[in-house]
Every structure is written in C-alpha cells, then in structure tokens.
C-alpha cells in the first residue's frame, strides 16, 4: 500500500482565474482513482497539472508540489517532457493521428522518441494492443488508417498508444463520454484491468461510472477538494453534505 502521487498545496490559475485551490491528496499506487464534480470544478485542470500539460496553455500558472515517487515534478531541474513519458494521458474525444496507420499510431510515442528497432517496435505494438483489449480486432489490419476504426476502437487505440511508452501512471479525461454504452462498457472493464498494474486517475462526470470503475473517489467543487475516500464509503455514506447533495443529484 503506497502512494504513487502526492499532491501538496496545489493551486492553479488560468490568467487571473483561480481554478484549483490548495489541493492536497495522495493517490494510491496500482489502483483506480476517480475524480468527480460538476462542470467547471477543476477536475480536468487537476489531472493536467499532474503531467504538466496545464502549463502549455498561455496564461496558465501552477503553484505547489506534485510528487511522483516522492520527487516533485515541478522542481527546477525537471524537464516536463520526461514527466509526460512517465504519466500518460487519454483524452475525451479519441484522437488517433489521422495520417497514420494503427501500427504507426501505437508506435508513435516510441518512434518519435527515437526508437528504431523494428523488432522491439513490433513487440511493443502487439503488447500494447493486447493490454488495450484491441489486438484481436485489429491484428490482421495493422496498416489500416487509425481513423477508420469505430469510436470505441479508436479510444482503445489511444489507450494502446499511451501504454506503449510504458508509463507508470495513466490519466484519463472522461474517456467514455463520446462513446456508446457498449463501447463504454468495454473501456470500463479495461480500466479496471489496467488498475491492477498501473496507477489510473480518471476524471468523469458520470457518477455511476465512477462508482463502477474506481477504488477511490475524490469530489471536487469550485476548485476545492471536498471529500476523498474509498468509493464504497463515498457512495454509501458520504461525510460531507455537499458530496451527498451532488451524488444524489440535488445539484450539479
């Protein structure tokens, strides 16, 4: 039982907009942690602060510490690019590289970072597609364009692409919101399986999904962490009235 990521006094701004306030939380290793909350509460910003994607937006600012294996990713000597190789991200709308085949998409992270060994690439592509539960569906047609797959398959392709660079943490920003129910179910099963070997943090506005998929749930409201506990407790007996009102649909 250890913490992969420890967030200390994290604050984030978009120009003058104070989006995250004094966030303190510890994310358990090899578990799935869900972050829920109404629109605009800062949940996407929170995970983008973990892999240093938030600062790419002009006018964005961060303060505080994010410890990955007890090392602050924001400390002066750290190159954000290396952080992003250890923390992968899957986005809301599936975004495979349109000009590339399935194979090239999965291998993209490796190739762009310099790997040329064809054999190793083949191996990694197959392993990643297997991990993403997509291998059986595409194995005969790795040269097909990435964009020719269905929405659910594309999202699994993006997950395979993220897994290929062998990250330790996987961040997911509402990964199922653009998908139909059966594609969603497949990805939820995948997330559960990934949680055994990776530290997964998933942002979702669908509370049922958070309840199904996660071991721990954090509730964010107006940039503050209101409650954070194991999923069972949050959904059976939340301690904070705000949490209770949100998850029972009284607001938000």
């Amino acid at each position: 039982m250890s913490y992969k990521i420890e967030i200390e006094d994290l604050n984030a701004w978009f120009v003058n907009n104070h989006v995250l306030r004094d966030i303190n939380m510890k994310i358990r290793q090899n578990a799935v942690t869900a972050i829920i909350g109404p629109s605009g509460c800062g949940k996407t910003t929170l995970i983008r602060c973990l892999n240093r994607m938030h600062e790419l937006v002009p006018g964005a600012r961060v303060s505080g510490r994010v410890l990955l294996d007890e090392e602050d990713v924001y400390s002066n000597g750290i190159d954000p690019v290396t952080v992003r190789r250890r923390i992968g991200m899957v986005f809301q709308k599936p975004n495979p590289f349109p000009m590339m085949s399935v194979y090239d998409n999965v291998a993209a992270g490796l190739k762009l970072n310099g790997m040329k060994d064809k054999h190793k690439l083949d191996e990694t592509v197959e392993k990643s597609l297997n991990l993403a539960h997509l291998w059986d569906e595409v194995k005969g047609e790795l040269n097909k364009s990435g964009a020719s797959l269905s929405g659910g398959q594309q999202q699994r392709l993006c997950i395979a692409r993220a897994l290929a660079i062998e990250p330790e943490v996987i961040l997911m920003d509402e990964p199922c919101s653009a998908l139909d129910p059966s594609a969603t179910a497949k990805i939820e099963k995948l997330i559960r399986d990934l949680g055994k070997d990776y530290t997964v943090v998933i942002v979702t506005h669908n509370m049922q999904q958070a309840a199904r998929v996660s071991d721990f749930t954090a509730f964010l409201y107006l940039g503050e962490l209101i409650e954070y506990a194991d999923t069972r407790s949050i959904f059976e007996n939340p301690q904070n009235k705000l949490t209770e009102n949100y998850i029972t649909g009284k607001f938000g």
Partner: protein
Amino acid sequence: MSRLIDIGLEQLSRLLFKMGDLAEKTVLLSLDSYMEGLEVQESVRIWSETLVALSEQVEEKAIELIARFQPVASDLRTIESYAKIAYDLSRYGRYAWDITFIHKRLNVSSGDCMFPSLPIRELNEKVKNIVHISIEAVKKNDVCLAKKIGEIENEVDAVYYECLDKLAEQDRITTKCLVTNLLFVRHLERIADHASYIGESITYLVTGERVSLRGQMSNES
C-alpha cells in the same frame, strides 16, 4: 431541485407510513383484546393480510427505484431501510394475529390463566409503547427515538425473563395456562425485537452506521 427519484421516494414513504399506522392499530387491537378477552380474529386477520400485501408492494417499489435510478448515499440507504422496515411491520401484524389465536386454539378464556405475580400487564404496556415509538421513529427519521427503542427493548427483555422465571416457579398451573402464557409473552418479546430492528434500520438510514440496539443490558438471566 426536485429529482425524478423524489416522486418514487415519496410514494415509498407514503406506503410505509400507511403500513406503520395499520401495524400499530393491529397490535393495539390484538393486545388489548387479549387482555380483555375479546374476539377480534377476523379484523386482525384482515389487517395482517393487508400488511403482508403492503410489504410486498414496498419491496417491489424499492426494487423498481433501484433498477431505474441507481440511487446512492442517503437515497440508497432509505430504500434499503424502508424495505427492511416493511418486513418488520408485517411481522407486527403476523404476531398480532398469532396472539388472537391463542385463547381460541387452546380453548381458554382470558381471565383463566392470569395471576397477579405474573407481570403480563406491564409487559403488554411496554410492548404497546415500543411499537408506538417505532412508528414515530419511522415517520420522523428520528435517531433519538431509535435509541429510546433500544432502552425500552432492554426493559421488555427484563420483564420477559421475569415472566419466564415466574412461570417456571409455578407448580399449580395447568399445562394449558402454561402454554397460553408462554406463547403470549413469547410473541410480545418478538414484537419488541422487531421494533428494535426498525430502530436499527432508522439509525442506518440517517447516520450510515449499522448499530445493534439489542442486548445492551448488562445482566441477562
């Protein structure tokens, strides 16, 4: 902001409160009639069957709400507790009915088997009280009342054991009277038990904690 599930929850609680009133009425009638020697089997039987039917309705409504709305937190606890309480209320009716049968089946009339040292009246009053408080606790979602149920239940247990002791001591009592009294106090004790279950369900509904309101007494013989 009112939600879709609120309509269903409203229907559920109305059903339950209706059950509560009917259950209390049934128990009161049965207990008083036993003490007075009145014949009320028919009424009590009908009410008891109504209670069973109502409890089935409550269960179905609860399942429907779960299937449709995937409730969480207090909604979920409410639905689970109400389903349990409905069962307990139907048991009130059942025991009330059983009590009306005692005299008839054993061919005994009320005054025959009473004797002063047997604290049956006291037991009777306590059980009527505990039933009343349990219904109040349900209607008001009151945890304090639930705790009170626990206290009274302890008192009921104490009197119950006293009755058992007294009955065991009697050497000039007919078997018929023994059985009559035993059955009566036994049913009363079970009614009180179900009242404490109701108290526990209400406590869980409000606080999310599962507690035991029974057996808090230090000495039980």
